[in-house]
């Protein structure tokens, strides 16, 4: 069930987000003069913010996982599988 709901959310996002962008941008972009530099570099910086944010979160999560779940962590305790010795 969760997989179905998750897939539905993903598909909805894939369909809805581009549509919203299209609707919002359609009115003000018809052949107007614009500065390519501003548009292209602006896009670049926005995407770099996303890329570095994702990179920070992912690497931060990995560092936290490695430190938190190392065997030598005082808070570490064996999983139920390890305790019972079978899984």
């Amino acid at each position, binding site marked *: 069930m*969760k997989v179905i709901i998750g897939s539905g959310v993903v598909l909805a996002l894939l369909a809805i*987000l581009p549509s919203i*962008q*299209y609707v919002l941008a359609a009115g003000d972009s018809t*052949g107007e003069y614009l500065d390519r530099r501003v548009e292209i570099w602006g896009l670049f910086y926005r995407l770099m913010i*996303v890329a570095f944010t994702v990179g920070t979160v992912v690497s931060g999560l990995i560092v936290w996982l490695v430190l938190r779940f190392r065997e030598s962590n005082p808070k570490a305790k064996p999983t139920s599988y390890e305790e019972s010795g079978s*899984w």
Partner: protein
Amino acid sequence: MRNQGRGKMSGHSTWPEWVYVGVVVALLCYVGAEAWNIERIIEHVPEDAELIKVEGQQWLWTFEHEDGTKEIGELHLEKGKAYRFEVTSKDVIHSFNIHDYTVLMDAVPGRINHVWFSPNVAGEFDIQCREYCGLIHYNMRGTLIVEDKGA
């Protein structure tokens, strides 16, 4: 013990993972939509844009204005006007690049590619080939001269 906890290997809630996946997917959607949208906007040429035919060949650039004026290695444009370029090549693949104005388009033999821009700063700017095209590729350069209106 197999399948203990109705298929959950970890034995704990998996919602954080799903939130994490959702956030990443949403960010990817944002990246895709934003890039697509900007590309769409900058490809939309103003109606009054003047046509300039650009032809690359080893190792120089030739420009032809709408009125038939030809220039080699130099391109004179008027500040504040829009120009659309039809870019092609005589021999091998080149790439027409005006770095200061973020203009970049491949020049391919037998094919016409389009790009447009509107210079908003007067002065001299470099034109260069951005695709390795042979021995003297490094020196396949030109000069863009943007002049104030009426200059």
